[in-house]
């Protein structure tokens, strides 16, 4: 049973205080949906959770241990899907996914192949990234997170450019990830149906401008 807890988090981007005093608790099997208007800090919170951004105040702990104390370990237990798909135009779909899978424990070519199949892009395995549509690139990026296991998924607008069927596939993937004891935090403004998810409205933590 893993526990990922954020406490009293404050985020400053540039000179703007994005949010302050924010807390959350995620446990194995749990899901956290981030909502709020543009600029309320959904992406910032996900980057904070990933460790890409350091909180200006507050702590993030994984099973009681501060995330900041061991960045590599934290990186190893999470998958982050940001706004950019990290698909290299000159590498084939398979090479793209396999590279990221190989960097992590438990990932490999076989897992990469299975992940492509889940998102219905196995027929594109040999196609270089530059020929892909936006939706296909997004599916390659999502296949990446299936290709190596990690307990925590951080998804920033994962449904961008996806069609109905692909969204359903993603929902199913998230459901089975949670069933296996994984946890998910996702920012989205299109409805993504995640059973029994907590919702965190970042609009509530919006604060006055800081100098």
């Amino acid at each position: 049973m893993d526990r990922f807890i954020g406490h009293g988090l404050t985020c400053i981007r540039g000179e703007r205080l994005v949010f302050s005093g924010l807390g959350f608790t995620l446990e194995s099997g749990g899901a956290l949906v981030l909502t709020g208007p543009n600029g309320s800090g959904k992406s910032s919170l996900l980057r904070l959770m990933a460790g890409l951004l350091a909180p200006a105040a507050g702590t993030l702990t994984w099973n009681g241990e501060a995330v900041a104390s061991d960045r590599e370990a934290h990186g190893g237990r999470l998958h982050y899907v940001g706004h950019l798909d990290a698909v290299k135009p000159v590498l084939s779909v398979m090479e793209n996914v396999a590279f990221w899978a190989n960097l992590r424990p438990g990932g490999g070519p076989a897992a990469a192949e299975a992940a492509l199949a889940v998102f219905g892009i196995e027929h594109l395995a040999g196609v270089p990234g530059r020929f892909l549509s936006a939706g296909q690139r997004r599916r390659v990026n999502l296949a990446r997170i299936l290709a190596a296991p990690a307990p925590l998924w951080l998804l920033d607008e994962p449904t961008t450019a996806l069609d109905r069927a692909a969204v359903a596939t993603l929902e199913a993937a998230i459901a089975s990830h949670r069933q296996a004891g994984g946890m998910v935090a996702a920012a989205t403004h299109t409805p993504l149906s995640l059973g029994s998810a907590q919702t965190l409205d970042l609009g509530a933590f919006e604060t006055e401008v800081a100098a």
Partner: protein
Amino acid sequence: MENLSQLLEMGGYARFVWPSFGLTLAVLVGLLVVSRRALKGAEAELAALQSAIPGRLQPADTADEA
């Protein structure tokens, strides 16, 4: 008078000594003027903004830490 011309001549080195002192003073005064003007400009902008924004007189950013 003789002293003054002697001073100005600088033992024949006038064209090296006086530019050195002159340039140093010019740069230091110039830097000071530019810095002061920037400060006055910023302060004027802040004052204009504060009067343009209705409501609180004292902006939140000068308040003490939370």
